[in-house]
């Protein structure tokens, strides 16, 4: 069976939240059996790279296997946050979908 690349959006849903200049993004799998597949690929390093345009100073992944979910915390990723950013979305609310466009490989292997 060949491997296929799909956006994370096909496998998971997500919500972003802000506290000051820190962003958290949940990744919640539609099917719990995909947990290992996603856990292997969606590392904190990979997410840091995908969000390099926001220059986070640190990315932490918290694993919640019983809930079939991950929680990513990206520090200093909000261009100053809602009170400081010059961007349109100072809360970073749209960024859950930046997470969901990260490609992941599914299939055998």
């Amino acid at each position, binding site marked *: 069976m060949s491997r296929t690349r799909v956006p994370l*959006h096909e496998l998971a*849903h997500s*919500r972003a939240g802000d506290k000051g200049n820190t962003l958290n993004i*949940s990744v919640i799998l539609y099917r719990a059996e995909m947990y290992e597949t996603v856990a292997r690929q969606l590392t904190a390093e990979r997410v840091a790279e995908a969000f390099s*345009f926001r220059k986070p100073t640190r990315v932490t992944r*918290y694993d919640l296997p019983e809930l079939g979910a991950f929680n990513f915390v990206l520090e200093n990723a909000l261009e100053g946050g809602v*009170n400081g950013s*010059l*961007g*349109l979305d100072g809360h970073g609310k749209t960024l859950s979908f930046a997470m969901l466009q990260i490609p992941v490989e599914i299939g055998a292997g």
Partner: protein
Amino acid sequence: MLPVHIGCGAGFAGDRSDVAGPVVDELVGRPGERFLIFETLAERTLALALQGAREQGGEGYSPSLERLVRPVLRKCLDSGIRIVGNFGAADPGAGAKKLKEIAASFGRPDAKVAAVEGDDLTGVLTARQLAEREVGDTLLSDSPAIVSANAYLGARPVAEALDLGADIVITGRVSDPALVLGPLVHCARWRENDWDLLAAGTLAGHLLECGAQVTGGYFADPGYKDVPGLEDVGYPIAEFHEDGSIIVSKPAGTGGRVDRQTVLEQLLYEIHDPAAYLTPDVTLDIRAVRIAELGDDRVSVVGAKGRPRPETLKATVCFEGGVLGEAEISYAGPNARARARLAADVVSRRMRDRAPGLPVRIDMIGVQSVFSGISFDPSPPGPAGDCGDIRLRFATEAPDAATAGLLLDEVEALYCAGPAGGGGVRRRLARRYKSASCLIERGLVAPRAYFVD
């Protein structure tokens, strides 16, 4: 005294004013103790309320108070549904008086309305003492003009007001979950070290505090996560049981959905370490939480764990943050992208000469804005490889309106002096408040609840 039924009538100050009605109608039909909470106090709301009070003769409480509470106040009072809301902002006493006045206009001058105060730190700590307690940054070391400083109070003063017989409790800054935990502590008489129960009550608060975010609001993604009747999304009600289990539901006949997915999204919302969500009352650990669908938009949530509360209280300090200036202009049709790019260059060059060092952010809405800087598919839609309809946005931040206005003037001047076909300029200046976080010794804060007449 359990189970207790707690509904949420607003998740933020800008929330809909017609959503609390169905929640109250549902609560009326339920037995036992019932409460309605309103969460209306975002980080900056307090500073904005203070500014409103000082400069525009406004009140120090949240301007959303009357709009959100009036539609349901009479029915709540007549049905024994008690109201807890953090409308108080900079002046909980004034907010409580306003509610008393509205209740009197309904023929209920006997309503017992309590204010919870003690969160205001401006008379407690000097600017220097606040700066010494700042965490995560050193914004306060530059001696900014402080507008407000408030500690996050916990559930105890809310419970105390209810113990005294309040029908309505108006707080200033309290932790959002305390709006729910307060009524639970009042009803269940938990001790200060009943950590698991306090954690379960805090979890109930966390699930309710953002209103529809747990019942299908802020959730829909067509084809992936569809939500029926989003235009009439029902607001949540939590039923809290003796053993700490929570059942989340919404009023019958409303839109939205309550299931594992909607609850899980809200469970993780604004959480950092899932093992340690810090509140004034308890440290909440959600790692072992279990969510079970009961059908008919009812979900059971169990498994919150609690550990001792933090030694210190968090406080938010708001200070003057200059002026945000924004201006926009549109370019459309053939070669729109190149003309927009040229307009951006023209304004950038002129600003470099006229206001060196002033930050200028440029977004090309329709091409790239909120994901600015991310690599994207270079094959653009539209005829002849163009984007078709671009909104060019400029933004700056300056210490004063005159400086920020320099950018706005440059964007407006594109009407006559920029590239061909620019139109629809809009410009806006807004005062900015920035905030810093501090950790405050509990002993410095003396929460109190009192009735207004």
